[in-house]
Each structure stands twice: as C-alpha cells, then as structure tokens.
C-alpha cells in the first residue's frame, strides 16, 4: 500500500471540514477523489501533504506514519502535490520554478531532469527564461505539473488540474497525467470534472461535506445513477 488514510478529522478552527474519511492508494494506481465545491477535497490533500494536520486519525505513506510529520519533509520521501490554483512562483523564471521543484535533490540538478519535464511540456522549454507570471493559464498549469515532477515523486497528487482551462487544454493535461502514470508514478487526482477523472481512474471516492459518500472502480462509478445525476449532467 502506498498511501493509507484512516478516519481523519480535520478542522479549520471550529469548522469541522473533514469528518472521518478513510481511503487508500495502491502502488501504480490512478485514484480519483471527486466531489462538489467545498466537499473537502483540497483540505484532504493539504492534510496528506502535511501542510495541515488532522485532529485525529492516521496517515501512512510507504509504511511510515506521517500523520504529524512537517510538510516540508515529505517531498524527500516521494510525495508531491500540484496544488489547487497552481501556486507557481510568479516572480521567478520557468527554470527557477523547476529548480525549486528539485529543491530536495542534493547538489546540482541533472540536465536530464529538466529535459524530462520539457519532453512532456515542450512549450515550457521555449519559455524557460520567461518570468512565470507572464505565462498563460494553461502554461502555468503545465509549469506546476513539471515542477512537481522535478522531485521524482512516487505519489503525485493533483488538485483540480483542469480548473479554468479550455476543453482542448483539459484534454492535453489529462493525457499528460496518463503519461506520468505510464512512466511509473502513482496518481491521486482531485477533480470536480468527474467525467474526465472517472475515465482515467482505476478507483474513485466521492466526497460530500467532509465524508466519503461512495467509492468504487472508475467504471462502476461512471455507470452509477447517483453519480450521473450529481456530476455527469444526466
């Protein structure tokens, strides 16, 4: 088991945002976490990433209890997140953003790592010296994904990578997520775009107001009447 989340409760002050959810991700899987706005998807990822900590429950990553581990120690263990809204460093160049992605690597960053990112995102190579704030929304999403790749993650978590992108770009981003997966990275994908997410997910969990309402294989959930009604427009 790569990631196991057991019955975690997460609060923002008095607000009980995550109410005892459990899920797991096996090595080599694509697992999707879907749900409406405000369901608690981002809070869940922030908690796994150690940016927030649960009041109770347990999180295990590659056999190690990381429930209370400081977030900055997790990328070195093989956990990376592409956060909601990209959160790239807007005043730094594309190359500097990628270097920050490789922060946990000791010594000089191998040229091959940059080339690997550019092979997935050729457009970033053209813009390597540009300040990230001048990139288009789609390019910024690519940079955020490339940056996460620089730490060689074993588990890559993506928070709504399709948000705000034109349909053609959404298609492209999902193809690239599948490329990452094919090259051996395990994926935990958070999406409101349930249709796309279920197409590529081995398994999925549906989050509703801080609890897991449904779970199953991607295909099962895509066929489920509840899902169709709530998320797939039919």
């Amino acid at each position, binding site marked *: 088991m790569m990631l196991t989340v057991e019955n975690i409760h997460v609060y923002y002050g008095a607000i009980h945002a995550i109410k005892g959810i459990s899920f797991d991700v096996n090595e080599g899987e694509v697992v999707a976490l879907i749900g409406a706005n405000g369901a608690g998807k981002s809070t869940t990822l922030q908690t796994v990433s*150690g940016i927030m900590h649960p009041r109770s429950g347990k999180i295990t990553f590659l056999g190690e209890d990381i429930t209370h581990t400081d977030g900055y120690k997790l*990328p070195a263990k093989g956990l990376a997140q592409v956060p909601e809204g990209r959160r790239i460093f807007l005043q730094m160049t594309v190359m500097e953003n990628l270097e920050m992605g490789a*922060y*946990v690597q000791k010594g000089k960053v191998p040229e091959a790592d940059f080339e690997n990112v550019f092979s997935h995102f050729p457009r970033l190579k053209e813009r390597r010296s540009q300040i990230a704030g001048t990139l288009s929304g789609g390019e910024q999403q690519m940079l955020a994904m490339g940056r996460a790749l620089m730490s060689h993650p074993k588990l890559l978590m993506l928070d709504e990578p399709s948000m705000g992108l034109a349909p053609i770009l959404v298609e492209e981003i999902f193809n690239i997520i599948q490329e990452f997966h094919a090259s051996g990275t395990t994926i935990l994908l958070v999406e409101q775009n349930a249709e796309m997410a279920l197409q590529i997910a081995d398994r999925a969990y549906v989050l509703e107001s801080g609890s897991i309402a449904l779970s199953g294989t991607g295909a099962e959930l895509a066929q489920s009447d509840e899902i169709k009604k709530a998320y797939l427009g039919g």
Partner: protein
Amino acid sequence: MTFLNYLLSGISLGSIYAIIALGYTMVYGIAKMLNFAHGDVIMVGAYICFFAVSRFALPPLVGVLAAMAVCTVLGILVERLAYKPLRAAPSLAVLITAIGVSYFLQNGAQLLWTPNPKVFSSVVGTGRLALFGGQLTVSYVTITTIVSCIVIMVALTLFTGNTKMGKAMRACSEDKGAAQLMGINVNSTISVTFAIGSGLAAIAGVLLCSAYPNLVPTTGSMPGIKAFTAAVFGGIGSIPGAFLGGLLLGVIEIFAKAYISTQLSDAVVFAVLIVVLLVKPTGLLGKQIREKV
C-alpha cells in the same frame, strides 16, 4: 566643491540607510512583518564593536566580526522567541510585539551599558583622502561606507539570484505554502533571513558610529525609522528598492540640511516620501502584487 562634498556625505549617509533598509525589506519580504526592533540591533552591534575595540583592545576588524556574530544570534533569537509564536497572529499583534522588542533592547542596553554616551572611535581611523590637489577631501569613513554598501548590494543580489538558499528565500517570500510543498523548510529560511538582516545591521551600526561617534542606547532608533522610510520609498520587499531608497533618502536629507534648513530636513525627507507614494503607492521599484489567475 562644496556641492560635491554634500553629495558625498549624502551618499555616505544614504549607504548606511541602505544597509539597514536591506534588512527591513528582506524580513518584510519573507515574514510580511515590519521588524521595528531592527534599528536597535544596529545599536547593539555598535556597542559590541565599541567594547571589543576600546575595552579589549582588539583590532577593529575583529570588533566588526564580533558585532556581526552577536547581532546574527540576537536576530535569530528575537525571531524564535518573539515573532515565531505569532506566525498566525494578526499583523497588528506582531507590530506591537516588534515595538516591544525595540524597547526591550533599548532598556536592556541602558541597564547593561548605562545611558551615558560612549565615544565610538572610527574603525578606519579619522584620516582623509585629498583629491584634486586638496580641493576635495573625503574621509576614510565615507569611502569605507560607500564601498561596503556596494559590496553588500552586489553580494545580496548574487545570493538571492544564484544560490539555492537565496532562491528558496524568494520562493518563501512569494508563497510559503507552495514553498513547503517543494520541501523548503520555511521556518529555517525565515531564520536565515533574520540572521542576514541582523548581521548587516551590525555593519551599519559600526559605520554609523564611525561617522557619528556619539553612542547611546537610542542611537539606532532614528536611523532605523529613516531606513524603514527608505525601504518603503524604494518599494518594500525589493532589494534594489532598498538600495535606491536608502541612497536617495541620504542625499535628500543632506541637501535639505545644506540648502534649506537643518531643522526642516526631516520634514523635507518625509514630504518627498509622501509625494512618491502618492504617485507610486508601491514605492519606486515596488512590484504590483499580481492577482493569481
């Protein structure tokens, strides 16, 4: 040649403001707080150097290094003990704490070193360099101050632009959450920033007292406020901005003293600041905070 003399004094005073302003601006950039105790760290640095040189007869360079070491540790301690527990607190609480730390340092200095003025002896002597056949003379202090400021500016630019730690600092300044997702230890990065700012404050203290030898526990407060003004003037958070703001402030202050009125010089300085902020609210080189798309 009087004009040139005034200009040099202005650049020299401005260099001291710039070195102090760099500390203000770097700390503001990363911790998003105004460290009003920064000026008092200057005073502590000057006292340490004073005692090392005048009491223990150590060479001036050792005095400067001792001052830097003490101030670096002091900066880290102040951050750990006073500011870190307030990381999530409202900025007003942090501001009041910083003012409290400032008084704490001033009172501590009074207790340890008495309020009686000490006469600081310049670390580079009182000699002057004669130029243009003696028509223009420049003190060694002025030369040292201007050269130090340039060296510090270049070193900081290289550090933030080219080193891993420097880039991590910029990343933390922009987005601490994202920086943490990269594996950057935000707390230790903030500590390093305080350490650098405080080490620079020690240098500023030594240079300041070499030019104006009267050392008392409140020596740091007025230059601290001026340097803070310089940092805002240049665009708070911007390193070149602090440099430019400091230099301009020093030159304007000396010219105002020379050509307008000694009493009104501070009023002139602040009037210029207000005009600049009216025209450009982010300061001369300040960046507009871009909204995320």
